[in-house]
């Protein structure tokens, strides 16, 4: 791997380039799913290749190949340079990079149990036991469970002289019960929707999640939702569980703070951001208890955005994004940091594989724990509590959003009064975060993994981390998804 990365770098570095880097990557994945008592998807995959990025003639060129012969690498290097040269046909300014140091490092993400050491039949046994428990409950029409494991080794070499060898191990697991009855489909997922929980861990995550223990409750709730009242429409205090709040952070804080979006790079597809440069240090993003960081360091936790170095050789860092409610930081790259006059990138460049160009991606964008107890968070005369995302949508400047959840409860004086089906809420990003009235403490804080964040053209799918604890928001618009 090191030889591959160095030979690819050598293939471009001896041509006339301002800067170049090469990433040799080997990815191994295993995917196991079950559905209604049977194995669903059982697969194993590996992929190895190299991506070569050059800064030449004032702009970027990138070529990737899985032909790892000397000729294949030479050909990719020549193509990267040809592409950079072609870009001069429409170039307005020369790319400059914020300075960075040379690093030589080797890093392996910590894990206790190598997930690839667990045989597939044992994985299937765990999932099928959950499946059977879900279907034991009358009314569950579809039981689905899954595990996903990934090990990715990447060797990064750059013309700065950096040589960084990183290996990350990711595990994900979860299940869902679906109930169809009389023209209505209801669903409950555990521990989160869209595949469950994902973290930078080994198989120990599967054991920590207590999948089987939670299956009866989840099955019961999926069926009970048919008999629940429709979530009312109006303005209410809203309490969100930490998984839904994690997605709320992702969509309404994580994406708008991507500096490439702010500067227009994503305008044709993912869109831009309401956080224009003049807002930095001035905008009252949230209430005074709202503190958000972007933190890729291991100290923050085993998130999908945890690493030692980003994909342009910048060390993992912690950056304040919202401090005491005020907007104070973007996520940056070496190019965008230089473009706005910052001295250094804060290390957010990531690519979803060897065949893709690194982009600014969320690392772990987390709401720091508050000081309230869970009882204090729920301590409102009247509130709606929602759990587990069902749908999510936000405009292309990340300002107006609408979320739906799988289940809700009407709360009075901290007590659950009745279950509600089809709950949803909507609002304006800054108004929502400024309505934050209570955040639960560290004990209730979870670092959630979002494994499916899309961005870029060609689209890249990235895993991101979001820490959150349950929180309460005042006077939020509820029920708009079913309005009209």
């Amino acid at each position: 791997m090191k030889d591959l990365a160095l030979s690819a770098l050598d293939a471009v570095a001896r041509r006339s380039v301002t800067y170049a880097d090469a990433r040799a990557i080997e990815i191994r994945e295993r995917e196991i799913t079950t559905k209604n008592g049977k194995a669903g998807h059982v697969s194993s995959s590996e992929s190895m290749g190299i991506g070569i990025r050059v800064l030449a003639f004032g702009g970027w060129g990138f070529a990737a190949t899985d032909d790892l012969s000397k000729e294949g690498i030479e050909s990719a290097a020549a193509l990267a340079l040809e592409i950079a040269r072609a870009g001069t046909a429409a170039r307005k300014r020369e790319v400059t990079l914020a300075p960075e140091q040379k690093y030589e490092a080797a890093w392996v993400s910590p894990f206790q149990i190598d997930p690839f050491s667990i045989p597939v039949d044992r994985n299937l046994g765990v999932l099928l036991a959950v499946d059977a428990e879900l279907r034991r409950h009358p009314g569950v029409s579809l039981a689905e469970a899954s595990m996903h494991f990934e090990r990715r080794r990447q060797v990064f070499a750059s013309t700065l002289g950096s040589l960084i060898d990183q290996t990350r191990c990711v595990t994900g697991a979860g299940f869902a019960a679906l109930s169809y009855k009389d023209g209505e489909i209801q669903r409950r997922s555990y521990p989160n929707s869209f595949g469950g929980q994902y973290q930078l861990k080994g198989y120990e995550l599967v054991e920590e999640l207590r999948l089987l223990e939670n299956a009866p409750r989840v099955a019961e709730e999926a069926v009970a939702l048919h008999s629940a009242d429709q979530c009312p429409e109006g303005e209410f205090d809203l309490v969100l569980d930490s998984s839904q709040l994690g997605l709320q952070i992702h969509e309404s804080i994580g994406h708008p703070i991507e500096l490439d979006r702010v500067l227009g790079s994503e305008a044709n597809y993912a869109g831009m951001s309401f956080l224009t440069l003049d807002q930095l240090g001035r905008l009252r993003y949230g209430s005074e208890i709202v503190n958000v960081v972007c933190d890729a360091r291991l100290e923050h936790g085993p998130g999908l955005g945890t690493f030692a170095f980003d994909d342009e050789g910048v060390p993992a860092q912690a950056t304040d994004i919202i401090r005491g409610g005020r907007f104070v930081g973007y996520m940056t790259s070496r190019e965008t940091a230089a473009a706005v006059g910052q001295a250094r990138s804060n290390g957010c460049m990531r690519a979803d594989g060897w065949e893709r160009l690194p982009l600014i991606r969320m690392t772990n964008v987390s709401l720091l724990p508050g000081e309230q107890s869970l009882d204090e968070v729920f301590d409102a005369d009247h509130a709606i509590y929602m759990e587990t995302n069902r749908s999510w949508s936000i405009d292309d400047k990340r300002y107006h959003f609408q979320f739906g959840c799988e289940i809700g409860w009407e709360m009075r004086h901290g007590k659950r009064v009745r279950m509600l089906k089809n709950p949803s809420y909507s609002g304006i990003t800054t108004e929502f975060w400024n309505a934050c009235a209570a955040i639960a403490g560290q004990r209730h804080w979870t670092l959630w993994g979002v494994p499916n964040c899309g961005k870029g053209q060609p689209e890249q799918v990235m895993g991101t981390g979001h820490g959150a604890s349950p929180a309460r928001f005042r006077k939020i618009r509820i029920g708009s998804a079913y309005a009209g």
Partner: protein
Amino acid sequence: MRDNVEAAEAIFGQVVDAARALGVTEIEAIIAGSDEALTRFANNAIHQNVAQRTTQLSVRPVMDGRTARASTNRLSRDAIREVVAEAIAIARLTEPDPDLPPLAGPAEYQGVERWFEDTARATPEERARAVAEAIGAVEAAGQTAAGIYSTGESVFALLNSRGVLARHTETMARFSITAMAADSSGWAKASACDRATLNPLELALTAVRKAAESRNPRDLPPGRYTVILEPAAVLDLTGQMFPDFSATAIRDGRSFLTDRIGKQIFGENITIYDDAGHPLQSGAPFDGEGVPRKPLTLVERGVVREVAYSRQAAALAGCPLGPAPTGHGFPLPNEFGEAPINIVIAGGETSLEEMTASTDRGILVTRFWYIREVDPYEKIFTGMTRDGTFLIEGGRVTAGVRNFRFNQGLIEMLSKAEALSAPVRASGEEMYDMVAPAMKVREFNFTETTRF
């Protein structure tokens, strides 16, 4: 790249040998390769410019009702032996499934010509020149351009030990552009197997016109409006429902068509096909098991008629004279079964201009954004308008408007379509390309507005 199709048989020979050495005779291989490049621009300049080339081998043994899949992009003799051994090893650890079909047998496939030399050989310079010309048109209007121009070719070969030898080669070109003015924007996109049929400059001028005409957007209240949806908006929204036209989804109770087959659920002017052979379509004429894709009439005059069946779904339907596989299965093993992916929404004879002229007050929508399902059975979706939303008054476009959020049921929407244009190959950002018309719909449900 195209020659690699011939190399597929040689690779498959090695796969069969490796499987036999481990006592397995039933095996399938998928060999997929692509050579793609994309020139991306923003702020009136090329800023990301990429190319990638890859070939992947994926193998699936079938042994006494057991199966699993293993994939690699290493194609050495040793790597092929290893991937076959891995697939067999994990398949042996699964429980036998009495419903797992044996490998498919050989079949005849419809001939489709979707590979064009000029598209496969497009150079970075050619893409850059076209992008520079498009940017020039946007800059001349005092606006800012962002977008992509991509070209590439792909090969897909599926072979199995029962004699299936299915091969497909295709080229694809896409051009998408957003033109931005101070308080407005416009968008246009097209795709084609033959890049000669794309006109980047024309698309740029369309985006420029939309951005210019939507300046100083008006702030309208949310509510129910007559809307005219351009083809990209139609495909991105209606496209969300087609995964439900699946026998497996219905069997699982996760399809909105559960208890609705044979019923009139849309208006009589709605007829929808799935047709892999349609001249404006793209993709292979066979499915993930090598079964030929058959045309389906999904909806006929508002009545749901046919859904897709994989081989397993057809067998599970139970009746000896029941449905045959339709050629829409995904590669096994999978939990989703099948889905139609070559959608053709039959149109009408009303042009976009005629729809506008016949509208006293309504909203013209260029595209939607961030469409997500709100209710899986009523098929309610939410999302935003984007990059060109206009007020129509007295039969003509009079102003741009601030973007709306919608929460709209598709069953209701397709029951309230008042007019359809002739269908075109449409390209959006949220679903795969389709052949779709523009559509005029009454009482479309906009629930909120944003502030731009």
